[in-house]
């Protein structure tokens, strides 16, 4: 009962945030909207016992990433309203068209077919199985997934090296 209530609220909040991201004319507002979405999605995680992931979501996203975004926005000073005049005549039509097609397909799926999001869903939920505590996550993370975990190291190395290579200007460079 509570779950459903929270779900509904958070779902609405998430979508609202998302919409803000897309429609807000000022990047700063978009960032705020994104923040909202991230939070509400984090809550939805919690609703599904993904505690650790939710935490990471808040820390990494809301904490690091979004700050970074805002920082860059300020840095390059695009914190002003974006013009709405469209220099691609077809673009807006295309977007609307695509949007309606999606709605069409989706409703078609929902109404005409017995579409199941999770055909392999088990009818009995076992909360312990998916209780995403740190231990629970850590165990597969460092056994089955250890290689993937190592691979993330590469990712970060690249991110670092790449960022430096792109943005960091040494002397004697050009």
């Amino acid at each position, binding site marked *: 009962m509570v779950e459903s209530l929270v779900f509904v609220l958070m779902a609405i909040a998430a979508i609202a945030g998302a919409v803000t991201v897309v429609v807000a004319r000022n990047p700063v507002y978009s960032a705020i909207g994104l923040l909202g*979405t991230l939070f509400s999605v984090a809550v939805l995680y919690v609703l599904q016992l993904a505690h650790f992931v939710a935490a990471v979501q808040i820390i990494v996203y809301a904490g690091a990433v979004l700050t970074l975004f805002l920082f860059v926005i300020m840095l390059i000073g695009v914190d002003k309203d974006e013009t709405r005049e469209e220099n691609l005549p077809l673009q807006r039509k295309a977007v609307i068209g695509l949007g309606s097609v999606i709605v069409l397909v989706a409703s078609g799926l929902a109404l005409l077919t017995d579409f199941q999001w999770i055909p392999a869903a088990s009818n009995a939920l076992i909360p312990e199985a998916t209780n995403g505590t740190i231990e629970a996550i850590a165990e597969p993370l460092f056994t089955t997934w250890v290689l993937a975990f190592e691979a993330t190291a590469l990712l970060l190395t690249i991110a670092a090296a790449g960022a430096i290579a792109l943005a960091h200007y040494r002397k004697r460079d050009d």
Partner: protein
Amino acid sequence: MVDPGLYMTVAAVLFFIGALGMLTRRNALVMFMCIELMLNAVNLTLISAGRAMNDLNGQVAVFFILVVAAAEVVVGLAIIVAIFRRRSTASVDELNEMRG
């Protein structure tokens, strides 16, 4: 007890909002946020699905996707900054020398 399908639907909606954002906005940063939206949708999907199937791997996967997102952000912002340095704009509409 909420039907996991609903979670998935919310995720789908988020995903498509993000996608449409990609098509409408011309500020690289915002487009980029839309991508973050899409990734969030993916995460939500994974978690909901995993929960419904009593499988923890979903959550583990989400962890990695988060990392990827973070890395992408770093590089992406670096590129944007680099461009801004030379062109002092973040509007990709002004980056269309190459076409045809």
